[in-house]
C-alpha cells in the first residue's frame, strides 16, 4: 500500500512514505527535528531524490494521505534551478509569496541575505548557475514553507560557483528556523551544512541521528573509505602569524590548523578524515606531523579486505583512523588501549 504523509509539528517532522515500483521500492518512516538542516546522504540510486519528490508530492500522488502539491507548504530547490524564464528575478521571487499570504520573512531581508539586490530586474537567462540557484532559494524562502527540500543544489555548479554559493547556505543555516532536508552524496558538503543525518540505502533509512553521532558509527558501509571521518567542534584560540597557523581548542585538546581564524567565532566545524589519522603506541618524536593527540581505542571494525576502521575516544569527541589490518594485528589494538593519534590534515568546514 503506497503511503505519503509528512507532518510538521513544533518539534518534529514526521516522514512516512511508502512507494512500490517494479524495479524499486521506498519505505521510509522516520522523524527528524523541526529545526536545522537534516542531510539525506546515500549513494546514487539509493532513493534520495525519490524520497524528496514523495515528500513534496511530486511522486506517489495517489498514495493514501497524499495532498495536492500546492497545498503542502513544502518548498523545493531543484538540482538545476527551475526559474520561470518569462519572469524577471523579482517576478520569480514574488510568484510564491503572492500565492501564500504574507511571507514570514521580509523580502528585503531575503534579497539582502542572498545578495540579489543588483539582480532583481534580470531575466533568468542572464544569470550564472550560482546566481540562478540563489534566486530559486530566495523564491522558496518567501513562499513561507513549513519545510524546505534541497536536492543537491550545488551539484550542477562548478567548483568556483560552489565556493561562491556555500557561504550563502551557511547563512541560511545560521539565520533560519525552517527545517531543511538537504540531499547530497558529498560527505564534505554534509559535514559543513548539516546538523542531523539520514542515511538512505535501497529505499530505506539505515541510520538517523545527530551529525557527529552518525559519522562516528562503524557499522555503516557507505561511511567507509573516503566517506569515513568525523566532525568535531573547536574554537580558534591563537593565531601564529610567523607560520600562519591557528591553534584550536576542542574537548580532547588542541589542534594546529593552517590559516587565520577569528577567535570570536566559537564552535567551528573541523572535519578529520579517517585516512588522515594514523596511530602510534608511543608518542612519536621528531615527526613533521603537528597534531599528536593522546586517545583511547573505542572500537575496531573491519571495513575492507585489508583495512580496519578504528574509533578513538578523545575528550567528548571521536576520531576515526583508517589503518591496515596488519597494523592492527601487529600493535594488537583493542578497546581501551591508550594510543597516540597523528592527525595529518584538518579541514575547517566553517
Amino acid at each position, binding site marked *: 500500500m503506497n503511503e505519503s504523509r509528512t507532518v510538521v509539528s513544533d518539534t518534529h517532522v514526521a516522514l512516512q512514505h511508502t512507494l512500490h515500483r517494479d524495479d524499486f521500492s521506498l519505505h521510509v518512516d522516520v522523524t527528524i527535528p523541526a529545526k536545522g538542516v537534516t542531510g539525506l546522504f546515500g549513494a546514487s540510486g539509493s532513493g534520495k531524490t525519490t524520497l524528496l519528490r514523495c515528500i*513534496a*508530492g*511530486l511522486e506517489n500522488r495517489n498514495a493514501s494521505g497524499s495532498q*495536492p*502539491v*500546492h497545498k*503542502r*507548504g*513544502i*518548498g*523545493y530547490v*531543484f538540482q*538545476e534551478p*527551475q*526559474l*520561470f*524564464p*518569462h519572469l524577471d528575478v523579482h517576478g520569480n521571487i514574488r*510568484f*510564491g509569496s503572492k*500565492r*501564500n499570504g504574507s511571507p514570514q520573512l521580509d523580502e528585503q531581508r531575503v534579497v539582502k541575505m542572498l545578495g540579489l539586490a543588483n539582480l532583481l530586474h534580470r531575466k533568468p537567462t542572464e544569470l550564472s548557475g550560482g546566481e540562478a540557484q540563489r534566486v*530559486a532559494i530566495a*523564491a*522558496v524562502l518567501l*513562499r513561507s514553507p513549513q519545510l524546505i527540500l534541497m536536492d543537491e543544489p550545488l551539484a550542477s555548479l562548478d567548483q568556483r560557483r560552489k565556493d561562491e554559493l556555500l557561504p550563502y547556505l551557511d547563512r541560511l543555516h545560521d539565520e533560519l528556523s525552517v527545517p531543511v532536508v538537504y540531499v547530497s552524496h558529498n560527505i564534505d558538503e554534509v559535514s559543513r551544512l548539516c546538523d542531523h543525518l539520514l542515511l538512505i540505502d535501497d529505499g530505506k533509512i539505515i541510520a538517523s541521528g545527530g551529525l557527529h553521532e552518525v559519522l562516528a558509527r562503524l557499522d555503516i558501509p557507505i561511511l567507509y573509505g573516503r566517506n569515513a571521518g568525523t566532525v568535531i567542534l573547536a574554537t580558534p584560540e591563537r593565531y601564529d602569524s610567523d607560520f600562519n597557523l591557528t591553534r584550536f581548542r576542542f574537548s580532547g585538546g588542541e589542534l594546529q590548523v593552517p590559516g587565520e581564524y577569528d577567535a570570536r567565532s566559537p564552535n567551528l566545524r573541523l572535519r578529520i578524515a579517517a585516512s588522515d589519522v594514523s596511530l602510534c603506541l608511543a608518542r612519536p618524536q621528531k615527526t613533521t606531523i603537528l597534531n599528536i593527540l593522546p586517545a583511547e581505542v573505542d572500537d575496531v571494525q573491519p571495513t575492507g579486505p585489508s583495512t580496519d576502521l578504528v574509533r578513538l575516544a578523545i575528550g567528548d569527541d571521536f576520531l576515526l583512523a583508517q589503518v591496515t589490518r596488519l597494523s592492527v594485528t601487529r600493535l594488537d589494538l583493542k578497546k581501551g588501549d591508550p594510543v597516540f593519534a597523528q592527525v595529518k590534515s584538518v579541514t575547517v568546514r566553517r
Partner: protein
Amino acid sequence: MDSPIFGPLWLSAQLAGVTMVLLIILGTPLAWWLSQTESRWKPAAQAVVAMPIVLPPTVLGFYLLILLGPQGAIGSWWVQLTGSTLTFSFTGLVIASCIYSLPFAVQPLQNAFESLSQQTLEFAWTQGASKVDAFFTVAVPLSLRGFVTAAVLSFAHTLGEFGVVLMVGGNIPGETRVISIAIYDQVEMLNYSSAHQMSLMLIVFAFCVLLAMYLVNRRWSRL
C-alpha cells in the same frame, strides 16, 4: 459587402476567424491533455486528430453532410433545437471547418506544451500554484509561439478549404459562398479576369499572413 469579389472574401475571413477562435478554445485543453497524458489511448487520440490531414476533403465532407443533414444525428437535433438546418448554412460551415482544421491548431499547441520543462511546472506547483493556476501563469506564457502558430495555421487553412465547404455548404451567396468557391464559380463561367483578381488577392494575403507568423516566431526565438 455583396460585391462578387469582396462578399466571398469577407465571408471567408469571418469563417476563418470564428474557426480560429473556436479551435484555440477547444484545441488548447485537448493539446494539453495530449502533451501530459500517459494514457494508452494517446496514440489513438493523436491519430484521430491528425486524420483530416490525410483524408480527402470529399470523404470528410461526405460524412459531415450525412451527420449534419436534417436526418443526421447532429443535424436532426439541431433542427429540433433551432428550426433550421445545419447543412448549407454558415454554422454548418463553422463546424465542418473546425474538424477540418483541428490538427493545424492542436499539433503546434501540443508541440509547444511538450517542449515545456516538466520541472518548471513542478517548481510552480511547489511554489503554491494549483495545476490550473500554473497552466495559465506558466505554461501559457511560455507557449505563446505555439499559440501564434496554431492561430495563424488554423485561420489560413480554413481560408484555403474547398472540398469540405462545397459538400457541406454548397454555394449560397452571403451564407456559404466563400472565396475558394467563388473562384471556382468564376472559372466555370470562363470569367477569368475576376478569377485572377480573387486568386491574386488570396496569394498575396496568404503570403503576408505566413510571413508575419515566421517573422514573429523568429523574433521570439531570439529572446
